[in-house]
């Protein structure tokens, strides 16, 4: 890396080398049977230079030769944006716990045993469920070096469990699923198994909903699958800069329910999205986005911040070794005071949404969402009455989150990137029908 940086500085005014290498070992079960064990190794190197006042960028797998990398970065710099920022000169960072050496010590056979035990627990609960399970351990190391004296390097471990279960009865298909992950051990199977068993129990009976506006409770999985994608776009400094975020110019305004607080936090110990610095070497921090309904901050990387006349918030994300863009790391919705059971008890007729399918395919910028309730339950007179199917819900996140009846008192991780409790909304439009005519 040093040599590439030195070579780059022979032609550039500033330069930065980013390197990430990872080794992942997924153990995969298919339809309750151990199908395969994999080892995936990969290394990527990215070079960013400021040449003649413009940004050049290139990347390669590590074995490609460095002269070619430099050549490509010089070529792209002819067309790059004006370089109006500096690479950060930090060379030390407050520690963030992202590495547990014990993860590397978990053997393949222990991973196989965990997967088998998880499957046994689910199939013992409900016969006929076919489970696809993955048990994954991973290690990654990230190094950043730049011409301004900046230097960062950290290691990250990862352990994850995921289960997708399918239960086919006649022509009816039920899909259940959940996952758990952390940088640190233990990641146990019990919590995951309990969550899936609860899904199976609530989905055992079927129930039908009328087509009208109804109260809806989103579970943590439901919050992540239905509501967060439009918000992440809206809080991105990029969308704010170009004026396509509905939140542009609304800093300090109360657009959401006063019970709602949301932050991004890359410093949570063992959080799968945690890191001491972002992918550009800017220090990680806890960034409040919504505080009691009021909009406090947007997130930025170096380039977007420079264009917007502000500072990077430490949200430069490369999705591997790609061009940095602003992105959230770990979103945290602050816990409220209402127990899920009390939310359900409060509903006369309504819906619990566990998984919404297709919600990310609409006009996300406007906050509109619409999707098929892949897994959801009807609530009738304060009790869960059974699974609903062939049902769509549609709404707008700004309207939905503008008035909440309650926020759950217990948050949990969803997919390693979101930590959220249940959200209880007064009214969302429901359309249903199996297409057979009525």
């Amino acid at each position: 890396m040093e040599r590439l940086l030195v070579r780059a500085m022979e032609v550039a005014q500033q330069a930065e080398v980013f390197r990430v290498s990872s080794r992942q070992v997924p153990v995969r079960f298919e339809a309750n049977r151990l199908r395969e064990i994999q080892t995936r190794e990969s290394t990527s190197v990215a070079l960013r230079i400021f040449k003649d006042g413009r940004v050049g960028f290139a990347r390669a797998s590590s074995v490609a030769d460095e002269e070619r990398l430099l050549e490509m970065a010089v070529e792209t710099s002819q067309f790059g944006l004006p370089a109006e920022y500096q690479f950060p000169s930090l060379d030390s960072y407050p520690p963030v716990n992202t590495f547990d050496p014990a993860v590397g010590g978990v053997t393949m056979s222990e991973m196989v045993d965990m997967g088998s035990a998880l499957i046994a627990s689910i199939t013992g609960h409900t016969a006929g469920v076919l489970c696809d399970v993955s048990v994954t351990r991973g290690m990654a190391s990230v190094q950043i070096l730049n011409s301004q004296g900046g230097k960062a390097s950290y290691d990250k471990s990862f352990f994850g469990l995921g289960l997708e279960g399918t239960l086919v009865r006649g022509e009816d298909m039920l899909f259940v699923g959940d996952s758990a992950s952390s940088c640190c051990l233990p990641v146990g199977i019990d919590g995951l198994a309990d969550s899936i068993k609860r899904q199976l129990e609530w989905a055992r009976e079927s129930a039908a909903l009328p087509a009208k506006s109804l109260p809806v409770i989103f579970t943590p999985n439901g919050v992540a699958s239905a509501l967060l994608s439009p918000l992440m776009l809206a809080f991105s400094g990029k969308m704010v800069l170009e004026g396509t975020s509905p939140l542009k110019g609304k800093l300090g305004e109360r657009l959401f329910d006063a019970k709602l607080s949301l932050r991004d936090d890359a410093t949570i110990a063992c959080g799968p999205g945690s890191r001491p610095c972002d992918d550009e070497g800017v220090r990680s921090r806890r960034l409040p986005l919504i505080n009691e309904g009021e909009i406090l901050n947007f997130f930025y990387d170096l380039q977007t911040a420079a264009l917007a006349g502000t500072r990077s918030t430490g949200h430069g994300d490369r999705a591997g070794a790609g061009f940095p863009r602003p992105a959230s790391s770990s979103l945290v919705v602050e816990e409220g005071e209402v127990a899920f059971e009390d939310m359900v008890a409060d509903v006369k007729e309504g819906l619990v949404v566990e998984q919404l399918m297709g919600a990310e395919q609409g006009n996300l910028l406007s906050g509109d969402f619409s999707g098929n309730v892949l897994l959801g339950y009807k609530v009738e007179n304060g009790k869960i009455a059974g699974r609903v199917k062939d049902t769509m819900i549609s709404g707008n996140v700004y309207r939905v989150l503008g008035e909440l009846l309650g926020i759950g008192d217990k948050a949990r991780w969803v997919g390693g990137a979101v930590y959220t409790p249940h959200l209880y909304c007064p009214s969302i439009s429901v359309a249903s029908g199996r297409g057979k005519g009525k």
Partner: protein
Amino acid sequence: MLREFNLLSFFARGITIGSMRNRIADALKGHDAEYIEVHFEESQSTQLVYRGKRLEEVDKSRSLGGNVRVLVRGSWGFVSFNDIEGLRNNVSLAVEEARMAGGEAFKISPAEPVVDVVAAEKRSDSTCVPLAAKKQLLDEYNEIVLGSPRIQSSNIIYRDVGRKVIFASSEGSYIEQDKPDLALRLTAIARGNGEIQQAGLSMGSRGEFSAIEGLQGEVKKVAKRAAALLDAPEVAGGEYTVILDPVLAGVFVHEAFGHLSESDFVYQNEQLRKIMVLGRRFGGGFLNIVDDATIPNLRGSYKYDDEGVPATRNYLVREGILTGRLHSRETASRMGEKPTGNARALNYLFPPIVRMSNTFIEPGKLSFEDMLGEVKDGLYVRDWYGGTTSLEMFTFSAAEAYTIHDGKVMGLLRAPVLTGNVFVTLGNIDAVGNDLDMNQGGGCGKGGQSPLPVSNGSPHIRIRHCVVGGK
């Protein structure tokens, strides 16, 4: 850590295909495995990303890597790597993994070994087009969008990839293939009346740059549509008679039926196998659904899949009846059917899984006007944002929608999301048009492998009782 070593320089140094074959063959010798396959892949790509007036990202990349997949006593081991010199050790590691997994009954069906070299047709290969020329064309499109009334911003993502893949197996196959790809997504974003709306255009090709030239008129329409959506009312949720244009109908057939035809969803599930039994009726006698990787020059076309099996044309539904499905060697073996050459991997980081290629509804006899004339009240839905499926239920989202009243297309509506159920919705198709069109935009995601180049298409189709989300 960086060394000069790549496949191209292999060839440049005069190392012949024969010697590459021998090198791999040597590395495969002496392992205790039923089957071993190796992929090597070298690629280079260029990506340009515009946001508004700024060309924000200009990115060139090169990648070199490979993988080994082995079958030992009925279980699989897989290793992917960047360092292609340590092949023998990686084969050993994969064998060790498979042995650890061991004892299951996964098998592959027999296949004839193939030795072949498939070069891409070099018509207007995008990897040879200078960066300045790419930028010039995209600049022009971007200016058209940004110069249109009520447009707040634009987003253009252009990516071309030149890819060379080598496949070799312990059965004696050795195949080299060029697999170039090009994709363009252009979005116009309008703002006004306190609303933000967007409209987009997706194009793609097997690397021919010419496929995205000359789109000025299309681009202008996209910008106009984004602006028009600002004033458009929302659809009321409910059941409608809908007519899908060829682009959206292509997404529909991909989501509604294509994925369920991928046998890896079915082969281990006895219940599903009963439901998906060949001979079952899914639609009317005029409904024919085909997946065909052998059509020249579409984005989902190839000569061999990533298990070295020759590509084929398959009727999934013929005259409304389930007649075929897509297979890898593994799913074919398990179901006692023939491999169809549909095992595909996104890149060397992943093992091949069963995927679609070019999937479409065959044209029927009706004209769009005839189809429309029979609808008293309904929706005409066009173009796409996306689609997804759980196999049984699926959603697909339109980019534009219009009211149909008394056989006429009326006012523009906000783009809705539509949903269906595979056992019902295909049977509710009551008309298939005569105007097949293949769409080359977008890509397909499955099992973390996204976006895989595919194409899909259809003529106009009409569906009764389709559930549409809305206020």
